[in-house]
Structure formats: C-alpha cells, structure tokens
C-alpha cells in the first residue's frame, strides 16, 4: 500500500503553524516514513502531483489567490483541516475587517506615520492578487472537515492529530494540548 499523501499551505497566516509543525523535532523523520508530502512549503512543491489524503490549511483567505489555493486544496484532498486560529476564525489579519478596505490601503501605503511613498500610489500591478472585502475563515469559503485551534497549535497537538487522522483512530487530545489561557 502506498503511503498517505499530505499537502499543506499557508494562506493569510504567519507561517507560525508550519513552524509549529517543524517543532515536532526528530519525529519529522518518523513522519517522513509514514507519509509522503505533496504540495507544501516544507518541500517547496508548487502544485499537487496527485490526490492527497490530508490537507492542512494555515491562515484564512484575504485575497483572491488564497481562495483559488484553498479551492484547489478542497478538490485535491480527502480531508481538510483548518490548522490554527487564522484558518479557524480569520485571526489577527481579520482585525482589518473592522476597517473599510479603502481606508486600510490608504493607511498602509499613503497615510501611515512610517510610510514613505512620494508617489502616493497604492500598489496595483495586475500580478498582485485582488484583496477580498474582508478576511474570511477557511470554512466560509470551502467545506472544512476538522479544526485545530491554537496560535499556533503546539507540535504535540499537530502530531497527535495527524497520527489519529492517518491511522483512523479517534482523536483524544488531552486537555493540556487544547488549553490556551
């Protein structure tokens, strides 16, 4: 039987959840034995090579590209997991949801006290993905099967969750791995 394939991505996140995944330390060798990584920043594969068992989503959707990537993950993965608070709720980036988009851009590129931008031009190259009106949690854009809370979820949480998912066993995370206060 071939190894289950895992894909990961960071949408509008800080890569902290991916760093947390790397925090499983030497267990990464074990992980490499039981799974094959497909599209992921960890191996720098830019696109899917085939259908995957599990997709891990870090970050919510802030721009059109995030949406395309997330939809692609939904198409290519059997199980999608929102990893961390940004994917689950929008997180810190969603703070901009309280401010109209135009004001956000003005503040970032024109009016902000530390901005030096003599042309007063807001970046508008067609290559730059269009921003969404607000930051959406992943499950508002596609169907998400599981949510792993935490900022970031700890390495142990990720490890336990992945193991449960790949072995088909029920996931019973001890309280200490889900307590964030």
């Amino acid at each position, binding site marked *: 039987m071939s190894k289950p394939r895992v894909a990961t991505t960071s949408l509008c996140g800080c890569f902290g959840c991916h760093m947390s995944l790397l925090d499983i330390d030497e267990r990464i060798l074990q992980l490499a034995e039981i799974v094959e990584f497909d599209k992921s920043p960890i191996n720098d594969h830019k696109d899917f090579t085939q259908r995957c068992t599990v997709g891990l989503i870090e970050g919510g959707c802030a721009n*059109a590209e995030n*949406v395309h990537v997330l*939809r692609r993950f*939904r*198409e290519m993965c059997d199980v*999608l997991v929102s990893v961390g608070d940004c994917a689950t709720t929008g997180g810190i980036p969603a703070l901009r949801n309280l401010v109209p*988009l*135009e004001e956000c*851009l003005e503040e970032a590129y024109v009016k902000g006290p530390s901005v030096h931008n003599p042309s007063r*031009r*807001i970046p*508008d190259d067609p290559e730059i993905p*269009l*921003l*969404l*009106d*607000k930051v*959406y949690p992943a*499950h*508002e*854009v*596609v*169907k998400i099967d599981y949510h792993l809370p935490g900022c970031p979820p700890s390495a142990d949480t990720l490890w336990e969750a992945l193991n449960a998912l790949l072995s088909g066993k029920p996931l019973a995370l001890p309280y200490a791995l889900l307590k964030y206060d």
Partner: protein
Amino acid sequence: MTLSVDGVVREACQSVGHDPTRLMDVARAVQARLGGVPPAAIDAIHHQLHVSRAQVLGLVSFYAFLDETPGARHVIRVCDDVVDRLAGHARVARAFSDELGIPIGGTTADGTFALQRTACIGMSDQAPAALVGDVVVTDLSAERARQVVAELRAHGDPQRLVKRLGDGNNAHPLVRAMVRNNIRQAGPIVMSEHKRGEALRKCAALSPVEVIRAVKTARLRGRGGAGFPTGIKWEMARAAPGARKFVLCNADEGEPGTFKDRVLLTEWPDRVFAGMTIAGYAIGAREGVLYLRAEYAYLRAFLEDVLARRRSDGLLGRDVPRRGFEFDIRIQMGAGAYVCGEESALIESCEGRRGDPRNRPPFPAQRGYLGCPTVVNNVETLCCVTRILEAGSAAFSVLGSRQSAGTKLLSISGDVSRPGVYEVPFGTPIQDVLALCGGRDATALQVGGPSGRMVGPADFERTICYDDVATGGALVVFDSSRNPLEIAHAYMEFFEDESCGYCTPCRVGNVLLRRGLEKVLAGRGEPADLEQFEQIARTMKASSRCGLGQTSFNPVLTSLQSFRYQYETLVAEAPHGRRRGFDLDSATAEATRLRAVAAEGGRS
C-alpha cells in the same frame, strides 16, 4: 431661554434627595430639560450625586430614550416592530423622512426634529404607530405622517396632534391620548368589574399567611410568561430575613406584540395597585414600585393621580390594609430597554443602573431591590391577586386547565380583523382564539412574542396554557402572504439590538443567527447552516445569563420546527465542497473598483 446645566442637575438631584440609586430619575429629568445628558451634565451628576462618571455614562448610553448629545426639540420615534411593518411602517417612515429631509437616525439642521426608530411601543393593535415626545400617535399613514410634521411645524405642540380621544380613560383629562383600548372580549377575572377597596377589606380580615394561602389555593402562576407560582414566590420573600422588603410591579411590557398591560393600567389601575398592596401585606413590605416603561409615559400623570386618590381614600399609606401595617407605591419610569422586563435587570434599572441582568442565586425574593427581599410581579398577575381576594380562590381556580388556573389576557395583532385584548380561560385551543379575532387565513402564529414560539397550522389544535403553548400574552397572526423566515429575521434584528451585550452567547449568537438567516434568505444557505442554527440555539440556551439570551433564538428555532420545508427549499449542497455563502466576485468587487479608480488616476 438658556438653562444652566448645573442648575438643572442640582434641581434634579434635589428632587430625589440626592439618592444615588435614583440616578435614572435624575438622568430622565435632565434629559427632559436639556434634550439630552451632555458631558457637562454627566460631570455635574457625578459630583452632586457621588456616583462615578462611568456609571452615569453607562446609564445614559444604555437606554434608548437617553442621549449623550442634546437632541432635537421634537423626537419622533417610529415603531418598526414586525406588526407595524405589516401595517405599512415603511411608507410611514419614508413619509417622515421625506417631509423632514433627514434619514431615520437623523436630526434636522435647525435642531427642531429628530427622527428615530424604536422597537414595539405597545400599540400593535393600532399600528403603524409612533411616539412624538411622550405623545402616542396611532394608525399612521404616509399622509398622516406628513400632516404630523406640518402641524408640529405650525404649532409645535405634540399634544395638539391628538384630535379624537380614545375610549375609556384614554379620554381622561390626565391622559388625553388617541389610543384605543380595543377590549374585544372581557372576562370574569382580570377585566371584570372592580369594586374599589373591596379586595383590601377582605385582605384585612386575613393574616398575611392566609393571604398567601389564598393565592396558592387559587393556583395562581405568573402572567409574564414564565409561570412561576405566585404564592411560592411570596412565601420565599416572606421567609427571607430583612426588615425592609419591596413589591415591584413589572409594567415594562416590551415583548413585541404585547399591549395588555397598557389596557390594564388605563382601565384597571386600582386593581393593579390593590394587588401590589396585598402583595406587600403578604410578604411584609411597606414599599412598592411600579416600573413603567418609557413608552407609556403618557399614562404617568394619570397613574400618579390614581395613587394620590388611593392615599386620600385610605387605600394607601398608614394602617393599610389594617391597623399596624402600611404601604405606599412610587412610579419608576424606564427609559426604553427591552431587557429591563427581565426581573433582575428591572431591579438594576430601578437602582439607577444599566439594565444588566444579575446572576442568580440570590433570587430577588432573597436579595432584590436595594439588596432587600423583593417580589417582582406582572401587572396582570397582580390584577389576578386582587380578583382572588375579591371573589375567592375557588372562583378563580375553577376556570382554566389543570396546571393553569384562571384566565389569560391575550394581546392579538397582525393579520386579523379584530386586533385587541381578549380574556380567555386557560386551555382555550389556538383555533378558537383565531376564530374569535378573525384570523381566518392564519398560517403562522407568533405566540408569546419573539421570545415565544412560532407555530404553524399543525399546532392550531393545541391549547393556550403553561403545559402546552405557554405565552406571556402576545399573539401575532400572519397570513399566507407572509414569509416565516422574514418574520424570524425581523425578530432577530430586534434581539440583536436589545441584547445588553454582557455575555457572549447572546451578544454573538443573535448576530450569527441573523446573518445565517440572511444567507438562507438570499438563497446561499446549505443544509449544514440549519444544523448550525440548532447548535447555536443550544449553546445560547445553555450558557446565556438571563432569559433574553436563553430564548432569543426562538424565532429561528421554532420557525425551523414549524416551517422546516420552507427552509429546506432554500438550502442546497454546494458543488466541489465550496460554500454557497461565499462569492469571489462580490468579495473582490471593492478591490476591483479601487483599482479602476487608481487606473483613472483619480482618487475615489
């Protein structure tokens, strides 16, 4: 005339003896004189009443009828309850708006008029309605709205808007309102003939314990909706230690679609006050407070007069109801907050604070108003008490059903030919009630207001009583042209507005449900959304602090139960695991617009 803020505040503070728990009265008095409670007044109140600035500001910002910025000379509050919407509220609001040249929420440049929306003002049987200051204007049309503005511009006296006086005491010199009672069916208990003083005479012949026993024998349960046995509540308060106890009458009927207490206060105020006096005697209280909702301010002078006459006739004051006892009543005005109908929020409000509900225990009967044992009873409950003393427990308990003795007042409005107040025995089937009020084409029925339940024809055989379909009295009828989901949506907007915001399940849950409904109504819902509604409702019920959050999901939950097929025709699974609620084009529309503007070299 210029008014000195300090002078106004000083006068207001003196009028309540500098009692900090009377902050509400002070704020209301200042608002009445200055048109608002501006920062300078908040400062002055803080100094003179020795309460923190935060408490004053907290109070002023909490209540709909108090403003931080001095408002206009005439504040027009258009009622936008669901029943008013059915009756043409939109046309009326637009007419006011056009005529004044301001949107809802606006103030005219000259500061003469402010136009606001307000939740149900207790006039659903004569909707659309509005308040002009304290004056109630009913049966509005677009044309009438324009006349109202024209007349106010011409003479500036809201009272002169009242052309034809209503029936009964609505025409009393101290009321002079155009409000109609609309008593469609009087009954043997609450809306029966009242012999003033008789209940108190009979009460005086009994000991307090015997009075409680009479109420228990009659099997009287609270008429506000929850149905707690009144006698047990009284016993608890009587048994609670404390030299000072209180009787509070909850006349804050804010449940949209309810107006029965308005009629009781207009036509049977003596019965209400007698009930309070009896309650005071039973629990050992010497003081009573009638908490009157701000929307019924037009009844205040009349009620004060009734109290004055009771004092001079020996029905209030010393040696009432018999030698060695005394009882008196004051009226506490509210300031426009639905949540204050919840008894612990009502107590907070009486003490001059925001209407934030309290944690229980302790229950009000143990520690209520000013920390003293307190019973809070509904207006109708107290009328029942008076009747029980007048006619005896048996005459009361013989009516109704097994668990629900006596009669119930129903405030019926919506798509019926005879809206108004009906007194029916408990156990009356819903379909009989519909036949009475002329709701022939009824397809949905909101029983007990938005916090109650929405029922469909399948439930019309069920009966009005505590064990079947319980209700505080509101019954709003919708005919086949109405969409239950839209009704539920309107009620969720109401709850979102009225949640005090203290606890998260209620503050957030109401918003999630309202948005979820919008999604479903827009045809973007999925079956999972319906499951989520139920899940949110469960969370709110289990973890909200007071009755508001524990019931405010009911418009969604009960319409989902009664009209599930209507929801199901609107939801569908999305292809490719996508969410129907998310549309990339509309989510990027603003960014696209901004780029187009930038490309033209201009700024938007």
